[in-house]
C-alpha cells in the first residue's frame, strides 16, 4: 500500500479525465437535443407547453446539481428502472443541461428581430424550415458564447458524479490522493487538468463574444 505520485498515477488521472470528457460530451449532446426541444417549447404558442417547460427549468435551475444527480440516480432505481451508473448519470446530466441550454437558447431566439419571423412567414415557410433554416442558425450564433460558457460549467460539474461513485477526474484524484498521501500535489494536478480542458474553451468563447459584439456595434 501507499505509492508515490508517478506516471502510473498520472495515467490513472488521465483515465479519469477521459470519463470527464465523455460524460461532458454525452451531457452536452443530450442537453443540446433536449435543450432545443425545451427552447422551442418555451417560444411555442401553446401555453401548457410553455408552463410545463417553465416549471422544468425552474426545478433544475433552482436545485443543486448534486441533488439532481442523487435523486435521479437513486430515484430511477426506486422506480424499478435498473440502469448502469453511467447511464443514470448521463440522464441526470442531460436533464440538467437541457434546462440550462433551453433557457439560453430561448433567450437567443427571443432576441432576434420580429421581422425575421415575419419575413419567413410571409415567404410561406412552414414551422420546420422557418426554425431550421432561418431562426435557429441565427439564434445559435448569438447564443454561442453563453453555450460555451455552460459547456465549461458542465465539464466542471461532472466532478459531482463522484458522489455516486463514478470514477471521473475528481474521483480519480481522491483515489490517488488516498493512495499517495499527497493530496495537495494530486489536487493541483487535478485542477491543472480541468484548467487545461476548460481554459481553451473559455478563451474561444470570449473571442466569439468579442466578434459578435463588434459585429453588432456596427
Amino acid at each position: 500500500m501507499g505509492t508515490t505520485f508517478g506516471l502510473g498515477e498520472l495515467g490513472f488521472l488521465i483515465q479519469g479525465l477521459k470519463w470527464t470528457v465523455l460524460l461532458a460530451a454525452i451531457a452536452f449532446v443530450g442537453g443540446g437535443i433536449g435543450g432545443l426541444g425545451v427552447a422551442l417549447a418555451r417560444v411555442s404558442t401553446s401555453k401548457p407547453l410553455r408552463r410545463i417547460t417553465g416549471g422544468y427549468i425552474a426545478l433544475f435551475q433552482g436545485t443543486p446539481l448534486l441533488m439532481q444527480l442523487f435523486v435521479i440516480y437513486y430515484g430511477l432505481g426506486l422506480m424499478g428502472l435498473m440502469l448502469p451508473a453511467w447511464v443514470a448519470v448521463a440522464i441526470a446530466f442531460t436533464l440538467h443541461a437541457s434546462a440550462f441550454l433551453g433557457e439560453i437558447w430561448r433567450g437567443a431566439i427571443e432576441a432576434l428581430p420580429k421581422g425575421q419571423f415575419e419575413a419567413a412567414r410571409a415567404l410561406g415557410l412552414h414551422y420546420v424550415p422557418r426554425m431550421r433554416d432561418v431562426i435557429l442558425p441565427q439564434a445559435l450564433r448569438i447564443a454561442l458564447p453563453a453555450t460555451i460558457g455552460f459547456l465549461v460549467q458542465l465539464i466542471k460539474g461532472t466532478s459531482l458524479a463522484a458522489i455516486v461513485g463514478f470514477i471521473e477526474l475528481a474521483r480519480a484524484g481522491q483515489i490517488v490522493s488516498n493512495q499517495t498521501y499527497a493530496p495537495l500535489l494530486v489536487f493541483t494536478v487535478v485542477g491543472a487538468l480541468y484548467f487545461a480542458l476548460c481554459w481553451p474553451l473559455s478563451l474561444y468563447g470570449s473571442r466569439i463574444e468579442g466578434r459578435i459584439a463588434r459585429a453588432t456595434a456596427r
Partner: protein
Amino acid sequence: MGYTLDFSVVIDALPSLLWGCLATIGLAQSGMSLALVIGVAGVVARGSNQRWLRGLVIGFVELIRNTPFLVQIFFLFFALPHIGLTLNPTVTAILALGLNGGAYAIEIIRGGVQSIDKGQIEAGLALGLHKGQVFRMIVLKPALRAIYPSLTGQFIMLTLTSSICSAIAAYELTSVAQRIESDTFRSFEVYFTITGLYLAISWLMMTGFSVFSRRYFNYPTR
C-alpha cells in the same frame, strides 16, 4: 421486499433541516457579500493602469472559472494550513464561495460598467469629480442595474454550489441531510426533501432580489 417511502424520519428531523436551511442561507449571503466586494474591487483593479494588477485579476478570474469548485474548496481547506492559515470549515466555505462568486461577478459587473455611456463619465469629470468618485457615484449603480438579472442569477447558482461545502464538513443543509441520512439510512426521503428545500431557498432568494431591486433601482428609465 421493495422499498416503501417513509417520510416520518424527515418530519422528525425537520427542525435540524430548517437549521440547515438557515445555515445555507447564511453561507450563501456571506459568500455573496464577499463576492460582490471582490467583484467591484476586481473591476476597479481590472481597469487600473498597472499592468501587473490587471494581469492578476485576469489570471484570478480564469483560474476560478476553469476549475471546479470542489477542487477550489479542497485547496483552501487542506493547503492553506500548510502556510500556517488554518480556517474553520465555515470560514473556508465563505471564502471559497466569495472567491468563486467574485470571479464571476468581476466579469458580469465589468460588462455592466462597459455598458455605461462614456458621456456619463465625462459629465462627472467635467463637474470636477475625481475618477474614483465618478465610479462610485455615477457609474456603479446604473451598471449594477444593467446587469442585475445576470448577477442575481449567478448568486442563485452560488447558493446551490454551497451544497458542495459539505465536502469539508461545513455545516449547511446538505451536511445536515447527510447526517440524518447516516442516522436513519432513509436516503431517498432525505434527498427528495432537501431538493425541495433548495428549491424553496432559491425561490425565496429570487423574491428577495426582486424586492431589493424594486427598492434600490427605483429610478425610471426610458
